[in-house]
């Protein structure tokens, strides 16, 4: 244990690599099986069976889909801007995954006398006796999510096709508008917490047996943030950028094979991120009954909450029809932003007197 590299103990590196690998593999598996779960859940909601043929009740469907997409022909349109066309799926995918670096998915666990906080970008300071993480965690997530728009815009533009361009334009307008509303709605949470560090925000929600959630203090903000996030990641009922009936498949019309799969993965990874962030900010993160006493329960609670929210996303998709474009813009600019501003003012006034 005394072995050190560049002033940090060996365990630090082992723990870091392990955390990154576990999180990454876990998110990838979740993304793969979210596609299956979505088809299955929507199927049953519409009194269908969903995928049934591959494996027991279609359990191998994501693998079959992956293999199929992998072996499809890769087509680059002759009129496309090659560089932007090739790089767009990567730009969409990477921000979706690196967001997980700051999301805490558990408390501090102790392995062989070394304390490891279950959050990738964090370390346990033994002299101060507390966890230090990125102290602008939420801003980091907002910054990364604002980069995701480039993938879609570039895909739309580089394909050099009118459907793609329309999809790309719609996507960027929508993402920019809802980013504002989402950002404004969570300011109310920071006014209560007084910090931007995600591990601290989770810690502050640990009272009352792990149920002192910001959802109960800021129901309006939680509701708005979740809806705006759905709009920002282009999920139904806000999936106008890829409205099949009008735009074929929107910005990914011209994409095939693995590049198409990357957009697909980005969409689902974004869904996981948004659910994880909503859980962290409003649903108490990894908190729950006995979560502090038994550290292994933390990640279980966290995953359960994230999966529940993902189920809600799929439920919404099965239930609601798509918005019209002007309704979408009206909702974003004239409803959510003013309500979020009023919420901030009200929180400020109440916070000042209590």
């Amino acid at each position, binding site marked *: 244990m005394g072995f050190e590299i*560049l002033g940090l103990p060996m365990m630090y590196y082992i723990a870091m690599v392990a955390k990154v690998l576990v999180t990454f593999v876990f998110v990838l598996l979740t993304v793969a099986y979210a596609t299956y779960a979505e088809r299955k859940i929507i199927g049953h909601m519409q009194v269908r069976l969903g995928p049934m043929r591959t494996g027991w009740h279609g359990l191998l469907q994501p693998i079959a889909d992956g293999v199929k997409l992998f072996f499809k022909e890769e087509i680059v349109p002759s009129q496309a801007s090659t560089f932007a066309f090739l790089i767009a799926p990567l730009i969409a995918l990477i921000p979706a995954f690196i967001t997980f670096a700051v999301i805490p998915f558990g408390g501090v666990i102790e392995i062989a006398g070394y304390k490891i906080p279950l959050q990738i970008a964090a370390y346990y300071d033994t002299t101060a006796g507390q966890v230090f993480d990125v102290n602008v965690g939420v*801003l980091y997530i907002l910054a990364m999510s604002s980069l995701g728009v480039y993938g879609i815009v*570039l895909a739309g533009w580089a394909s050099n096709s009118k459907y793609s361009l329309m999809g790309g334009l719609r996507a960027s307008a929508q993402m920019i508008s809802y980013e504002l509303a989402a950002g404004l709605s969570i300011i109310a949470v920071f006014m209560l917490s007084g910090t931007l560090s995600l591990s601290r925000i989770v810690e502050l929600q640990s009272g009352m047996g792990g149920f002192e959630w910001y959802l109960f203090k800021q129901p309006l903000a939680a509701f708005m943030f979740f809806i705006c996030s759905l709009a920002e990641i282009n999920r139904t009922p806000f999936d106008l950028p890829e409205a099949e009936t009008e735009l074929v498949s929107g910005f990914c019309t011209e994409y095939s094979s693995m590049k198409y799969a990357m957009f697909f993965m980005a969409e689902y990874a974004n869904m996981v991120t948004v659910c994880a962030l909503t859980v962290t900010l409003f649903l108490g993160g990894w908190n729950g009954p006995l979560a502090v006493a038994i550290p292994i329960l933390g990640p279980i609670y966290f995953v359960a909450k994230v999966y529940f929210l993902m189920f809600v996303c799929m439920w919404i998709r099965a239930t609601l029809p798509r918005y019209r474009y002007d309704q979408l813009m009206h909702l974003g600019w004239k409803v959510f932003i003013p309500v979020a501003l009023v919420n901030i003012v009200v929180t400020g006034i109440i916070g000042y007197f209590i």
Partner: protein
Amino acid sequence: METIFFLIITLVAIVSAILVVTCKNPINSALSLIMTFFCLATYYVMLDAPFMAAVQVMVYAGAIMVLMVFTIMLLNIRVDATKKHSHKLVFGSIIGFFTVLNIVVVLVKSRAAAPTGPYSGEMIKKIGHTELVGREIFTNFLLPFEITSILLLVAIVGAVILAKKKI
């Protein structure tokens, strides 16, 4: 460790900055500019200013450059077919020369010193960068902050009036 990291980031920053002015396709230039902003954000992180880094990515890479890319897309400027403008080259080189000269003179005359004043590195680490920036903005720099807000409000109202014929 930090020096090696700094050198790598600097290399990326310089290469992408060169690509901004040499790329034929305006979209590729815009992408290189975003890359440069990223490197700047990394410098802020290394200078213990995480809030600045996040804002740099959010505002410059996330908002301003999106609008730039948007404009390029809407105007549909494909490959730049401009002729060679020699006067641009001359003025550019003169400005570039004096900028470099300025930096060299400053670097030679005064050595980069540790920051003085109340905000030391330890204090920023203890209280937090965001908290310090917020406190300063809403106490000592309240008037400039309010003036900036009014300026932005005027700009928004102006944009609405220009864009909307009937109000």
